[in-house]
């Protein structure tokens, strides 16, 4: 009844292109923003911020980035962990080499550095496709981790190769380092997450996004229309890596505060982000967020129910966590292979027609 576009006439192409064509969605969007920026910070506990919300936002950014590559451009990548590591180490080097640089510049620059590295490792995508490419991106994953682990310059010659984020402030509020308040970290990540989601939306609805999707759907036809496959694929790798690099930067500086490349950015990270993208929905920005929410919340939730609520031994609970998460992935794929975002879309379609069934 209330959820439909009839009566909501679009008189300009500008209006027709907007992100939320239905009035109800627009209001809901404003409401979510209000909650995220004002209500959540008021009620945020340390635990919720550090163990749930901040990682959720960081992973959402990474998932957004990977979704651009996998969902929009159709290039399967398992190098996410390695690219996040580049972002994290770039941040560390920038923070320690230029103590006066503000955090926004540090994070953005880290993203740019990662974008360059990502584009470099995207080069083989011109010749290699599908699963072969996925396996090829593992070369990036393993090589980058090895390099960052091996060259002491990257971790300022510390004995163990660990990097820790020094304290930095913005507008007088401490954002990184041990004394940062969880709310500040959360808001800092939120600004990036919202900003990057907006950028992702803009890029994917315009010329560049169409060239990516064209490459994904039919690369030969795309090339014949005038899309340069090299430019499209490399730009996708670069933009994707930019996002992933920022995620890595925030992951290290705001969320964990310290990191070691072999452990924090291993292959499991690459798989986890791919999970988020596929469970959330390939080629969906909203999907990246729900995918990240699912993968961050699910284990926490299970752990709290099984160990906290039911008092199981932690190892049994951890094993069951594996079983349940694996099982849920299977169930989701069987029920709706196109992800949670598609489920939401189907729901919307139904809602749009409600209460009339056809």
């Amino acid at each position, binding site marked *: 009844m209330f959820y439909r576009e009839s009566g909501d006439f679009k008189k300009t192409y500008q209006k027709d292109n907007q992100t939320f064509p239905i009035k109800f969605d627009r209001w809901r969007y404003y409401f979510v923003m209000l909650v995220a920026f004002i209500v959540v910070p008021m009620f945020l506990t340390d635990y919720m911020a550090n163990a*749930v919300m901040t990682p959720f936002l960081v992973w959402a950014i990474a998932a957004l980035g990977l979704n651009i590559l996998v969902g929009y451009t159709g290039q399967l990548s398992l190098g996410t962990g390695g690219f996040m590591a580049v972002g994290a180490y770039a941040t560390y080097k920038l923070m320690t080499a230029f103590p006066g640089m503000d955090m926004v510049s540090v994070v953005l620059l880290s993203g740019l550095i990662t974008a360059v590295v990502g584009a470099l490792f995207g080069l083989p995508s011109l010749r290699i496709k599908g699963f072969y490419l996925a396996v090829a991106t593992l070369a990036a994953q393993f090589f980058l981790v090895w390099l960052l682990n091996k060259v002491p310059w990257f971790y300022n010659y510390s*004995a*163990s*190769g660990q990097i*820790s984020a020094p*304290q930095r402030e913005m507008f007088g509020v401490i954002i990184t380092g041990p004394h940062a308040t969880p709310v500040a970290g959360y808001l800092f990540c939120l600004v990036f997450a919202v900003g990057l989601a907006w950028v992702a939306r803009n890029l994917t609805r315009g010329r560049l996004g169409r060239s990516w999707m064209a490459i994904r759907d039919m690369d030969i036809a795309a090339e014949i229309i005038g899309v340069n496959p090299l430019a499209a694929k490399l730009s996708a790798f670069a933009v994707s890596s930019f996002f992933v690099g920022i995620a890595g930067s925030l992951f290290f500086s705001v969320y964990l505060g310290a990191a070691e490349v072999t*452990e924090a950015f291993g292959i499991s990270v690459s798989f986890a982000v791919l999970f988020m993208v596929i469970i959330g929905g390939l080629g969906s920005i909203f999907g990246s*967020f729900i995918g990240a*929410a699912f993968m961050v919340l699910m284990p926490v939730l299970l752990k709290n*129910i099984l160990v906290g609520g039911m008092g199981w031994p932690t190892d049994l609970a951890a094993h069951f966590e594996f079983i349940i998460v694996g099982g849920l992935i299977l169930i989701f794929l069987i029920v709706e292979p196109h992800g949670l975002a598609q489920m939401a879309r189907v729901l919307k379609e139904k809602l749009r027609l409600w209460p009339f069934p056809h």
Partner: protein
Amino acid sequence: MKFTKLATIALTTMAVSAPVVADLVFPSLSYRTGPYASGGAPYADGYADYFTLLNERDGGIGGVKTAVPECETGYNTAKGVECYEATKGDGALTYQPLSTGITYQLIPKTMADDIPLMTQGYGRTSGANGKVFSHVFNFPANYWSGASRIINRIKEENSGSAEGRNIALVYHNSGYGKEPITTLKALADKEGFNLTLIPVDHPGQEQKSQWLQIRRERPDNIILYGWGVMNQVALKEAANIRYPMDQMFGIWWSGTDNDALEGMGSHGYKAATFHNVGSDFPVYADIQKFVVDAGLAAGDGSNVGTVLYNRGMYSAMLAASGAAKAQEIHGVKDITSGMMRDGLEALDVTDALMAAAGMPEFGPEFTVSCSNHGGPGDVGIQQWDANDRQWKLIGGFEAPDTKLINQLIKVDSEAYAAENNITPRDC
């Protein structure tokens, strides 16, 4: 939005499921799953069982019951942080994460939250400098003292000199494995031996090239810094190439029962240790009686007396002593984490104290001070006897090259202080 809904569910369950707040909380960030579960499980068992023993036998510490909420990290830093955040609100007194990676995450966080971090034989070595790392306690020994002690032992076995020897370090290619490199390099310069570095990547199932290299170069000694499956494979390969086992030395994380099990292959293999071996101590009778037989053991009881179980128990005993000390200093039974820190800093582990805990001569005597959180770094040497299938202590707890190590600790901790704008405490 679905997410908000899920979040609400999560929140409610968390609120409902918050553990009953006991008086003295010692969270155990354990790992009983994942690639390193075989090391994590016995350690966590020992840690939990000791506190259970205190509750059952003595009614807790100073009459206040203890609780050990366990949280599974899977040796994963992000999960470690989640565990830390989840448990710190319940009045956690101290943390022991049994992971160098997680330790690095927690060093700044614990400092900010005023909770002491106990890392017995792992973590950040330079944390021994209490001036900079006010909340890190890595007594009684650390990676560097272990490395130095091994070199000393090699010297002892070779009429007092390591001059001209070829020594290879086979290490887990991670923060943990890389820790001793600086020390060994400094020692190589000082003692005149040649050091070869041989890294093994996680998880370390395939080490053929490394051991072919060793077979070719025939180093006089091998030092092993491994963890998990890497240890088993390394020892197996060493036996395969018939490397003389008594010339091979492991750090204590490579000297566990998991590592040296198979046949006669690893007979004579030596490892550094900072605590005694076996279960020939009065405390085990108590554990059997009050914990295992009462059905309260954390594991199935089969780990009791193994190296890692002992280590977990020893850590628990040190933590409990710290808590007792804190009660004594502050005159409060129900101490806070800040008081716990003071207690640990004033800890004076004497033979009498160890004996009273039912663990006579289980570990070295040492005193903690404001500036020294690392203890003397006394390290013993144990050797695997495949005939009896057990570790035997063959060298006493001796001090390593303290001067050199203190110098290295000073340099590393001051670099950390400079990077993080920490003003070293004055003491």
